[in-house]
């Protein structure tokens, strides 16, 4: 699964804000330059970013398998015509380019996920959204990372228990209800325990976070992010 792996690559060393700027700039540029030439340049940038993060492009493609069906279906469906020749390349052209640009955007964000630890992402979120809303989001993000595997296990256990009791013979709505009820029960119980623990530890709106600082490598990174946005602005004028 695509997740953070510690490492010593240039991309790991970048400030999370720089990586977010590159992703945002890349997305804006990809939407502005959805042409074969534009996408060729962006492919080089995306592969360079993924390569610098020491992430295998093929492995990343396998990770993205759940979005591939719709990306492939879009140009195929759009190209279909009623009557001869049944398929129009001209109609399928733009959706094909659009699907490809989504794939590139997902590649760049995969490099971010692979190289950025949760605490840095949290600090970046709270830098971007100051005050209590940012603090709430940052804390929520940390809780999601911590509790996701636990709750997935809860649901798997509920499902196995249901199967062991011939649950597969029950109607679909009933099965969904059983698994979701078990999940909800556990979530509320865990939320109560968590809120008690948070209050016991003086849960505050202003805790201490890791200090974010830009390094020398962030200069070209930020410049790339800005250049991509700039290219979109210039392209649209």
């Amino acid at each position, binding site marked *: 699964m695509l997740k953070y792996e510690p490492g010593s690559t240039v991309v790991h060393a970048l400030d999370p804000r720089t990586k977010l700027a590159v992703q945002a700039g890349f997305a804006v540029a990809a*939407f502005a330059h959805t042409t074969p030439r534009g996408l060729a340049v962006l492919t080089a940038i995306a592969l360079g970013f993924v390569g610098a993060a020491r992430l295998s492009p093929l492995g990343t493609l396998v990770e993205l398998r759940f979005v591939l069906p*719709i*990306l492939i279906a879009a140009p195929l469906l759009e190209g279909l015509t009623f009557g001869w020749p049944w398929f129009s390349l001209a109609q399928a052209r733009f959706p094909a380019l659009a699907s490809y640009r989504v794939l590139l955007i997902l590649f760049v964000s995969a490099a*971010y996920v692979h190289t950025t630890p949760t605490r840095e992402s949290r600090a970046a979120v709270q830098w971007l959204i100051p005050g209590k809303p940012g603090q709430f989001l940052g804390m929520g993000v940390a809780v999601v990372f911590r509790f996701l595997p636990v709750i997935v296990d809860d649901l798997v256990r509920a499902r196995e228990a249901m199967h062991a009791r011939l649950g597969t013979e029950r109607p*679909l709505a009933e099965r*969904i209800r059983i698994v979701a009820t078990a999940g909800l029960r556990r979530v509320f119980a865990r939320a109560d325990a968590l809120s008690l623990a948070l209050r016991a530890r003086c849960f505050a709106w202003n805790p201490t976070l890791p200090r974010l600082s830009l390094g020398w490598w962030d200069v070209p990174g930020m410049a790339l992010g800005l250049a991509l946005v700039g290219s979109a602005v210039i392209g649209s004028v």
Partner: protein
Amino acid sequence: MSADTHDVDLVGEEVVENVARAALFAALMGAFAYVSFPNPFSPAPVTLQVLGVFLAGIFLGPVWGGASLVVYLVAGAVGAPVFSGGAAGLGHLVGSNAGYLISWPVAAFVVGAIVHGGLTVGDPRAVGSVRLVGAMVLATALIYAFGIAGLMIVLGMGPVAAFTAGAAAFIPAEAFKIAAAVGIVRSDAFIAE
């Protein structure tokens, strides 16, 4: 950023509880992405995520339910594997599923606002079935409208192709989730506070 030890701003008691619930509910939404059931109507399996959107509105109310879904989106954007199929990354918020994802906080708010008749959270068991089902049907329509618009904008598809690929195969299964949500509310398993 300096270590702030002199001026601690504690989170209020009630807010702590709502924050913990909203955050854990966001994790549940992520866990729902890993659970799928075979769909009797189409080859696309049924995942429980839309059910999570309904339940967020019903049990957390419009404000905290919507906030919980925003936490879910931000967590997925910064790398928690919570999007469908265990995917993660900011790219998904501008990718082919962007419309669906962005609609979820709005849909949870709408379900909560209709079920509770405003911004304050009451007991969902006291709500009539027509109101409950109506809220979820409206939310489903909203989710698919956003989802189809997303496919049209991001992938450049026409409305017919977007509906065929992004909604036709999935909409019938939503009836099961609505039925399951009504069953959960009526089961007396939870007492909302």
